[in-house]
């Protein structure tokens, strides 16, 4: 490993640090320890918390399965299924939209300028707080919002279209908009890494565009597709802003349950629900890995990244 940043002002210290880092085998363990402390430990604590219970707004620190049992008895199945359904639907919509877009952006003969503009546009959503971005849609999709005003003004409808806001459609829509960049960017990166000569070789050997896509581009872009699904599915399962603002209380997802448990100070329930979301995510990712194997060996796809 080499610290590649070589500040011109200090041309001695950095190489020395780099050399020290590369000779000692401390870097990888240090990163692992830090990651463990910052990310893994809280998750473990969260999981442990889910085995406590609450009595009179106080957490009882005695191991029990009450919280988990209560979780499944209180009819949260419906909420869980709805959350799963919406998250998976949103992820699939993203995938269907993002893959062709990423393919076009990376290999569609887009000019350098055009590509830079597209990538810049994709990062714009990160500039703005998600609530501010989402709340704007209320003004656009509401009963007296922009869309309905236009629809009624042109005489296409007599009464405002009600399902545009405070509905599952609106929640889906909000999530699809906000999760598009996290899906597109990794796929774009992966496709961009595919050497043009591989695509040319495929054509040259007689493959139709579809065969080239299926046998060369798709398998080689799997790492990006999987990263995109992770970046999309995780936030979709935990989505909180969109169901709250665009669902208007009619679309309850797990995150809403977490929120209400939180405001009731029932921390073990919060922990159990959060742990449950993580478990769901793992199950879905495992399923995705199995599906990805049908399109190519995901392990060998990563060889492209290794060069």
């Amino acid at each position: 490993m080499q610290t590649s940043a070589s500040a011109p002002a200090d041309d001695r210290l950095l190489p020395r640090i780099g050399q020290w880092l590369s000779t000692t085998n401390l870097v990888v363990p240090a990163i692992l320890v830090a990651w463990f402390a910052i990310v893994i430990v809280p998750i473990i604590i969260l999981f442990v918390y889910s085995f406590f219970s609450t009595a009179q707004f106080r957490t009882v620190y005695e191991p029990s399965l009450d919280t988990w049992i209560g979780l499944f008895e209180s009819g949260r199945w419906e909420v869980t299924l709805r959350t799963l359904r919406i998250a998976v639907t949103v992820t699939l919509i993203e995938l269907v939209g993002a893959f062709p877009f990423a393919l076009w952006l990376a290999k569609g003969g887009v000019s350098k300028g055009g590509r830079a503009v597209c990538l810049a546009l994709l990062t714009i959503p990160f500039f703005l707080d998600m609530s501010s971005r989402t709340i704007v849609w209320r003004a656009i999709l509401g009963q007296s919002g922009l869309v309905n005003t236009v629809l009624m003004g042109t005489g296409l409808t007599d009464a405002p279209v009600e399902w545009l806001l405070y509905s599952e459609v609106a929640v889906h829509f909000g999530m699809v908009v906000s999760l598009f960049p996290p899906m597109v960017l990794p796929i774009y990166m992966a496709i961009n890494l595919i050497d043009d000569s591989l695509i040319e070789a495929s054509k040259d050997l007689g493959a139709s565009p579809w065969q080239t896509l299926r046998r060369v581009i798709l398998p080689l872009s799997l790492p990006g597709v999987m990263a995109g699904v992770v970046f999309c599915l995780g936030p979709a399962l935990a989505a909180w802003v969109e169901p709250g603002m665009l669902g208007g209380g009619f679309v309850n997802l797990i995150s809403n349950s977490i929120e209400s448990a939180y405001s009731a100070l029932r921390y073990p329930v919060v922990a159990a629900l959060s742990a449950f979301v993580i478990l769901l995510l793992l199950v879905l990712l495992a399923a995705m890995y199995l599906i990805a194997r049908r399109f190519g060996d995901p392990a060998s796809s990563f060889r492209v990244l290794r060069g």
Partner: protein
Amino acid sequence: MTDSTAVPMLEVEDVVHRYGTVTALSHVSLSALKGEFLTILGSSGSGKTTMLRVISGLERPTSVRRLRIGGVDVAHLPAAKRNCTTVFQSYALFPHMNVIENVAYGLRIRKMNSTDALREAHRALGMVQLDSKADRRISQLSGGERQRVALARAVVTQPSILLLDEPLGALDERLREDMQIELVELQRTLGMTFIYITHSQEEALTMSDRVVLMSHGRIVQSGGPLDLFDRPNSRFAAGFMGYENILQARLIGREGDLGLVEFPGGLRLQGLITAPALDTGTPVHLAIRAERISALAPDAPEGIAARITSRVYRGKYTDISLDTPAGPLRMRSWHGAQDESREIRRIGWSTNDAVIFAVD
């Protein structure tokens, strides 16, 4: 070359290709017979790779009058539908497939069932002596092995024409020489037309039936390896083919192919005229290879006077710089030959070794 009655396997007529304002190919015509080993020789930027891409269909030319492979008009067919395959300079092997899957790719694309495809792929791998590594990953192969896999992958579908884009460029010298021989043997066995791109005159001379020399998007000269080596007809061709001595003179007389030139100091020398239409009185170049010059006795009636200005020992040979009435000349003496060290007063060469062509 095979018999001349055969139909050309490749016919390219008047192809023009421009990248923006840059003209990569300017009215180039080319043809190759069945089973011919044709080499397109040129430095980078000469248009040779563009030519190959136009033939393979990976590049659509700006205009072309005729483009046929095996008598079939392919000018408007995509690369996938043309009966030719390419061995890419970078090999372009699929990193997510192992060796045998790479080789079988073209067959699987053609919906051949997997048993037959595997058998054919193994056969092709055997042809390049790599059958033992069929299950290896591409990343586990050496450069030479990757080259062979790329070759096997390209020939397994039995195309009419194999296009090779500097396939030996990335190999070390020893391996390159072995592969040259293997490639020629493979080509003879398959009876396939090979169009081979290289910037190395050595590769062109050792492997080809016919060589086409390109420069700045045009064909400068074409012919057998010996024609190009011994009868260059332009300053560029002579320089590219390694003529060390290219002298300025004026043509004062010709008799058939034999020409007489006069140097500014009045010295007259004979040589072979390689450019057909050359009038007496025009300024010309006379070119001679360093190794074709030999020392003569100081009182010999033929030859020209010379004085040594420097000697450079280069291992296998010694380069000797001379001052002569025709201008500065370089002669080459093989290591161990007596010219290497003795004094030289007079030099000469066979008239057939000096070529005369127009100043361009």
